[in-house]
């Protein structure tokens, strides 16, 4: 195997590989990236057995076809430090030695043969659904903030993707919750069949990196327990979470009629300032809501208290309510409108937060005990 390729082209691909390969692996082959030269292209494959990432580079000069695997982290680190636009010359010297030469650099990288690299069936029965790249990225970004980190509740460790209908139109809806807050975002799609599934957190984050870096057409195709995303020459195949997402609609309030309207940016900045007195962020931020303002305060037994007042409009009588400041900041940061519309009932019931500039997304947050 012998080829040469531009450093920047290979580095871009290896950057995505880093998000898939696990740093600590009991199987050494899983720390490696598969490089395969065949049919006038360089294929790059990485996996952690739950996610597989494929990429193809056509802008490559092939001397001899062949394949090998080498440490993804080391190769990435070397390429990062090689000057931009350099030409990389690879040659497989023996079964376990890959030579990499560029400018004045000369590396010999240890390799493992490709025989033990896992292979995967690439068969999907579901319809291929075309998605708007940037809108789907928005859906993921808005919902991923609520993914649970509790690994004993695996069914909450991802985004629940499913079809919903409204006004005769079909939407692909993503919902995530950690039982404290919930985010939902939808994007309109052509009429399609799609079996609902839970997309794992790692896949969500990997997809976000891919989507942020490319504007290629995105398609999605699923089967019973896996899903494939195709973005130009790149493919990401992932297992889905084997679990049942809770009936989330049951916790979305429908009759919260006390409406608070606050400027989004001022609200976030104000919370960030008053929350500074709570080093571990354990104390909630208390909102004393009046007709025309909100008094925000955080009181920490260890460091003191912080108070601030911002202008607001409230449709009801005074109300006191407390929230985890991080949750409010996370949600408010995803709001596109200049104002936040917060729908309240009382100080202990779920609170609905709407984005007036994005009617297809909403958030629900549980208060803290005052």
């Amino acid at each position, binding site marked *: 195997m012998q080829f040469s390729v531009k450093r920047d082209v290979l580095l871009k691909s290896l950057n995505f590989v880093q998000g898939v390969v696990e740093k600590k692996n009991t199987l050494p082959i899983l720390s490696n990236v598969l490089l395969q030269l065949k049919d006038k292209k360089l294929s790059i494959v990485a996996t952690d057995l739950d996610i597989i990432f494929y990429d193809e580079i056509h802008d490559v000069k092939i001397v001899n076809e062949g394949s090998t695997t080498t440490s993804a982290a080391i190769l990435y680190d070397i390429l990062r430090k090689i000057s931009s636009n350099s030409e990389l010359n690879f040659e497989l010297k023996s079964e376990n030695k890959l030579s990499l030469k560029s400018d004045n650099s000369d590396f010999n990288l240890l390799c493992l043969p490709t025989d033990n690299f896992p292979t995967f069936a690439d068969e999907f029965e579901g319809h291929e659904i075309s998605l708007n790249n940037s809108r789907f990225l928005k859906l993921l970004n808005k919902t991923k903030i609520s993914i*649970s*980190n*509790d*690994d*004993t*509740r*695996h*069914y909450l460790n991802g985004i629940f993707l499913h079809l919903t209908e409204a006004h005769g139109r079909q939407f692909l809806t993503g919902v995530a*919750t*950690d*039982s*404290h807050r*919930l985010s939902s975002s939808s994007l309109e799609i052509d009429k399609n069949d799609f079996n609902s599934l839970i997309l794992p957190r790692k896949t969500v984050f990997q997809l976000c990196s891919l989507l942020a870096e490319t504007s290629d057409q995105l398609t999605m195709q699923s089967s019973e327990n896996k899903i494939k995303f195709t973005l130009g020459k790149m493919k990401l195949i992932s297992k889905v979470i084997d*679990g*049942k997402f*809770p*009936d*989330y609609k*049951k*916790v979305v309030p429908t009759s919260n009629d006390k409406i608070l309207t606050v400027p989004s940016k001022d609200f976030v900045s104000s919370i960030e300032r008053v929350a500074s007195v709570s080093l571990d962020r354990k104390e*909630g931020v208390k909102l004393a809501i009046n007709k025309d303002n909100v008094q925000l305060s955080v009181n920490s037994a260890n460091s003191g208290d912080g108070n601030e007042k911002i202008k607001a409009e409230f449709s009801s009588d005074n109300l006191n309510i407390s929230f*985890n400041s991080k949750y409010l900041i996370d949600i408010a940061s995803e709001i596109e409108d200049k104002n936040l519309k917060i729908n309240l009932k009382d100080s*202990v019931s*779920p609170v609905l937060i709407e984005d007036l500039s994005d009617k297809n997304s909403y958030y*629900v947050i*549980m*208060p*803290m*005990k005052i």
Partner: protein
Amino acid sequence: MVYQSIINMDQLTFKFPFSKKYYEQDFFVSSNNFSAFKLIESWPNWPGKWLNIFGERGSGKTHLSKILEKKIKKTKLIESHNVDNKIIKEMSEIECLIIDSFENNIDENLLYSILNQSKQIDNYLLINSTSSINNMFKLKDLKSRSNSFIFISIDLPTDELLKVIISKTLSDKQISINPKLTDFIINNVERSYENLFKFLKDVDELSLSTGKSININLIKKILNQ
């Protein structure tokens, strides 16, 4: 260790609905519930028509009732507090009446009428209660009628059963924990169904409220309350 009470929690959580599952294959037969299970399984070959299964809350009486309910085509399973006069009429259309969670909370005259109706139409009756219904009643005739019941008790759980209860309770909520934690819980929680369920509920709630996984530290926190 006798487990006492719940911790103070600050973050309120969503109450997602979770349904309990009562599959026959999920019922774990152990020495303490063997007789009750055998009798339910052997229906209609009971030594009598009326059966009273009694045992602590959470000992599996409802699960056994659900198994029986599935075995019989025409049956009615009703919570004791929902029983009213209408049931007398309905009884003629069913083969077996199952009254769950009986806590002497049915008017004694109504219960007497139910027993009379059952005897007249010769159908089956299962009453689940936390203690034996024998000697529970003041009405003389009802007291005498209650002697015709077959009484089966479900005793304190074995270690194996406790393991299954922990695993089933958590799996109904889609929670998976390290099996070593199950042993730790069994060794540290008082051996009673009610205590164990309360403990698991508190572990679940603390984990949800704090957003932390169920691990040894979280379990110790609950035990130390």
